[in-house]
C-alpha cells in the first residue's frame, strides 16, 4: 500500500442537475458516489467520455460548484487550471501575474522569480505587456496554466490544460508536470485521451457517475 500522504481525498461525491420547467422538469444524475484520492508525488488522470462528469467533479473538488453529497478533504496549497481560461480581457499578462501573486501572498522577489521562470518555461515571455484580448488561444492557455503553478501548490488540479497547445508546448507541459510530480506535487489531470495513460501514475475512469481505477 502506498504510504504517501493524500493531498486530496474525495468520497461519495454526488451531483445532480435539474433541467426543464414543471411539469417536464427532470433530474439528471451526473455523479453517483464518486471516490477519488491523490497523494503527494503522484500524477493522476481522470478520464471519461464527453458528458461523463469529469469537469463537474473537478469543479466540485476545487470549490466552484456545490455538491449534493459526499466529503472532500484537501491538504496544503491548491493550484487550479480551468478548462477555459478564466482571465480579464483588458488586463495584460504581467498584470495577471501581479494579481495572482497578491492572491497567493507571494513576496515580490518570489513573485518576480516565479513569473520570469514560468514565462520562460512556457516560452511566452515576449507577451508580458500584451492584453489578453490580443493573445491567441494557445497563449491564453499558457497563462491560464502558469497562474495555477506560480505558487508551487501541493495539489494541482488541471482540467484539460493543453487545449490549444502546439505539439512542442504539449510535450513541454508533460515535462513540467513530471518534474513537479517528482518534487512532491500531487497532480490530477482531467483528460479524454487514452494515449496519455502511459504518462500517468494512476488513472480513474469516470463511468456511470462513479470513479473506477483503471
Amino acid at each position, binding site marked *: 500500500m502506498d504510504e504517501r500522504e493524500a493531498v486530496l481525498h474525495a468520497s461519495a461525491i454526488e451531483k445532480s442537475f435539474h433541467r426543464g420547467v414543471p411539469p417536464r422538469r427532470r433530474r439528471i444524475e451526473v455523479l453517483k458516489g464518486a471516490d477519488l484520492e491523490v497523494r503527494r508525488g503522484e500524477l493522476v488522470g481522470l478520464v471519461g467520455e464527453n458528458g461523463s462528469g469529469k469537469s463537474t467533479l473537478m469543479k466540485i473538488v476545487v470549490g466552484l460548484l456545490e455538491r449534493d453529497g459526499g466529503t472532500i478533504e484537501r491538504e496544503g496549497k491548491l493550484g487550479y487550471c480551468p478548462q477555459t481560461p478564466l482571465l*480579464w480581457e483588458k488586463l495584460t499578462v504581467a498584470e495577471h501575474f501581479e494579481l495572482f501573486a497578491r492572491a497567493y501572498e507571494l513576496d515580490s522577489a518570489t513573485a518576480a522569480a516565479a513569473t520570469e521562470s514560468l514565462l520562460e518555461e512556457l516560452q511566452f515571455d515576449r507577451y508580458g505587456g500584451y492584453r489578453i484580448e490580443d493573445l491567441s488561444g494557445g497563449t491564453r492557455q499558457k497563462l491560464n496554466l502558469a497562474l495555477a503553478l506560480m505558487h508551487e501548490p501541493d495539489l494541482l488540479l488541471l482540467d484539460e490544460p493543453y487545449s490549444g497547445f502546439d505539439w512542442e508546448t504539449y510535450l513541454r507541459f508533460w515535462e513540467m508536470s513530471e518534474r513537479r510530480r517528482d518534487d512532491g506535487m500531487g497532480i490530477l489531470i482531467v483528460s479524454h485521451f487514452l494515449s496519455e495513460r502511459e504518462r500517468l501514475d494512476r488513472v480513474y475512469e469516470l463511468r456511470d457517475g462513479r470513479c473506477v481505477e483503471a
Partner: protein
Amino acid sequence: MSAIAVSGADFLREHLRARLTLVLLVAIPVLFVVAAAAVLGEFATALGGSVAGDSASALGAGWAAAFLAGALGFFQVSSSREADRRLALAGMGAGRVAVARICASLVLGMLVSTAAFLTLLLSAGVAHPAHAFAAILIFALIYIGIGTLVGSFVSGALEGSLTVAFIFLIDAFSGPGMSDSGGLAQLLPTRKAADLLSDAGAGVGSPVGDWIAVALIALGALLLAAAAFWLSARPRST
C-alpha cells in the same frame, strides 16, 4: 500596495480600457442633458405632470449618471464572475474581491457623476452646484446597486442590460413632475434623489433630513452591491 488596492485598480482598468466606455462617458451625459432634457417636458405633459427647463436638465444629468453606473455595475458582476471566483479561490477570498470591486465601483460612480455634472454645468448651468453634484452622485450609487443586483441574477449580457434598462425606464418615467407622483412612484429607488436634484436645478435648497434619507438609500445600495459581489465570488463548497 495591498491585494485589495492592486485588484481594485485592475478592475477599474478593465473598464476604463474599453474604448466604448470612454465614448459613452461623454456621449450619454450630452444626450441626456442637452438633447433629452428638451423633450422631458413634453413627456411629462403627456404623462400628466410638468417639469421646468432647469429641473429637466438637472434630472437629465442624474439619469445619465444612473444609466452609466447601472450598466457598469451590471458588467462588473456579469463579465468577470468566473475569473473573480478563481481569484477568490486562489487566496484573495470573496470578501476582499468584493471590497476591491466596491472600490472600483465607487471610482466609476465618481467618474460618471463628474462627467454628467460637468456636462450640466457647461451646457445649462446650475443654481446649486454642490447640491446638484451630490444628488447626481447618489443617482450613480443607487444604480451601482441596481446594476450589480441584476448582474448577480442574470448572466446573459443582453438579458441583463435589457433588465437594467427596463428598471431605468420605469424609474425615469415615474420621477418627479412626470406623472401625478403618487402611490408606487414614491417607492422607486431614486425618487427622493430626483426630488433633491430637481430642486437643485431650480435653485431651491432641500432640508438636511432629505439629504440624510438619500444618503441612507445610497448606502443601502452599496451594501447590496457588496453582497452581490461577494455572492458572485464566493466558493461554492470545499
